[in-house]
């Protein structure tokens, strides 16, 4: 049984169709990425999942239970990291976490311990008594996450948790999401950064205009486009270089030289990179630079919609 099941979800804001017959099924323990451009309807979908918005049409089942029927039981198992940082500026980091924890029925020593865990998890333990007023954007984002994981939810829904922050905080957040995924938490992660979703998620749904236009793991998605890759190399010199040795490799469709630049087009760069390097070394050439151009999910989006994910 999928832990999250969404059938034909529809939501309109006046004349704007924000979510259009969206269907989704997420298994327990997955880290599911929901990726799409601005205004694709990601946040709207998430707000309906957590019960902040009522769908115009469609059904949402969490753990097999219709959320309309049994809201309370379900809400206990969900953590939401909202897109906008939602914390109390006039309360310390710990007070924020403890307040939200208390709403989930935690109290006393247990609450204190869970709050400490969340603080450590988000790397804010040293700053626990400081008010977020003084925090950097990245630290606020981390506190925003800590407030949603204090009760150890089964399902963690994160709405663009890394928007507009420094690289360090971003890496911290990404690795914590990985950690949560490993510990068995089902994570739903929205973003408009393909590379984030690509590195984090076991399965990805691409949303555009309120619909899922493609879904699958990253290889399945990449297979949607012709998956030619280009290996570009710079060699120290290319005199007497025997290109035919490379061209004759099974999965190489072409190999050309432009001065010291070698370009190999292949359908499986990972599989044959070793062979390519060995051939070059056997011919006593030095490799100065290697560049691997694999198709990215950005290319998938471009192919499917004719637009770039971000302008």
């Amino acid at each position, binding site marked *: 049984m999928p832990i999250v099941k969404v059938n034909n979800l529809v939501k309109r804001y006046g004349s704007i169709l924000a979510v259009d017959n969206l269907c989704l099924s997420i298994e327990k323990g997955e880290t599911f990425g929901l990726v799409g451009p601005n205004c694709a309807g990601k946040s709207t979908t998430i707000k309906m999942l*957590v*019960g*902040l*918005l*009522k769908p115009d049409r469609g059904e949402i089942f969490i753990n097999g239970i219709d959320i309309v029927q049994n*809201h*309370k*039981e379900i*809400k*206990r198992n*969900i953590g*939401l990291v*909202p897109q*906008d*940082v*939602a*914390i*109390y*500026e*006039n*309360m310390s980091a710990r007070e924020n976490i403890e*307040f*939200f924890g*208390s*709403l*989930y*029925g935690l109290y006393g020593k247990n609450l204190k311990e869970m709050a400490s865990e969340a603080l450590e998890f988000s790397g804010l333990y040293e700053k626990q008594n400081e008010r977020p007023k003084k925090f950097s954007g990245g630290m606020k984002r981390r506190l925003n996450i800590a*407030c*949603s994981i204090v009760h150890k939810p089964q399902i963690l829904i994160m709405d663009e948790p890394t928007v507009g922050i420094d690289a360090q905080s971003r890496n911290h957040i990404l690795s914590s999401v990985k950690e949560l995924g490993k510990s068995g938490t089902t994570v739903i992660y929205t973003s408009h950064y393909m590379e984030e979703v690509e590195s984090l998620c076991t399965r990805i749904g691409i949303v555009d205009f309120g619909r899922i236009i493609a879904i699958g793991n990253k290889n399945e998605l990449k297979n949607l486009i012709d998956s030619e890759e280009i290996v570009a190399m710079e060699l120290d010199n290319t005199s007497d270089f025997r290109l035919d040795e490379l061209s004759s490799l099974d999965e190489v469709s072409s190999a050309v030289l432009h001065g010291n630049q070698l370009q190999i087009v292949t359908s499986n760069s990972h599989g044959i990179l070793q062979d390519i390097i060995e051939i070059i070394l056997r011919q006593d050439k030095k490799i100065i630079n290697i560049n691997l151009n694999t198709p990215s999910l950005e290319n998938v989006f471009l192919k499917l919609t004719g637009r770039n994910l971000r302008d």
Partner: protein
Amino acid sequence: MRFYYIALKEIKSFIKNPYIIPPLLIVHFLQFVISINVFNNFVGESTITKNTFATIEIINKNNNTNIVIFYGAFILTQLLALSSIIVAAYITSEWENKTYDRILVSPLSIFQINIGIFSGYITLMIIISALFMFLISVLYGFDWGGAYFNIFIITVSLSFVCVTFAMLISNIFKQTKIVASIATFTVVAFIFLSGGLFAGAVFNKISRYTLIRWAFDAYISVIEGKPLGSVSINLINILLTGIIFMAIYIMITRKGDR
């Protein structure tokens, strides 16, 4: 009982902000002292004008209420009314900061959340009024007459209206700046019309329709030692207003997505 955490949080964040309660108390204490002085030094001794007749009239109605009791009661009422502006701004800012969404996502029901906010701010208003009462009795020797239970009942009723008013307008207008200006305009207009600022010398007729007047008349009566029954009409009016506010609030929140 988890709504208790919401109530506690509201109270804490209000109390911890040094720019709210202390200035509120100081300003009202000063207003109290200055009003009495002005009345005694100028109005009391000046040639009797039409206005002061009205003053004497209203004060006579309250069984020879002295001006000190009058201003004590009025300024206590005004303090609570003005606090409701700050409460409204606080509630709205919680929506703007999206922290309210976070509370809505938790397993608490809307009812528990509302009760939490509601009880938190009512408690806060009771605390503020108690502090003010304490302040003027210690610094000025104001005599509250000992009927603390009756005073408490009036304070609770008045706080009930103030908080439902705050919740209602923050729900209708949804933006801190708009809510704060509308609340300020409404509250100040009613304080003005209640005639309390002029010791009842003006607006004597209109003031009978203002909630502020119902409240401070009730305070005056119980401070003077009259039973709660003698102000039952005032209390019923106050509570009814609160219930109407609350009913509209519930109607609005039922309809919306939140």
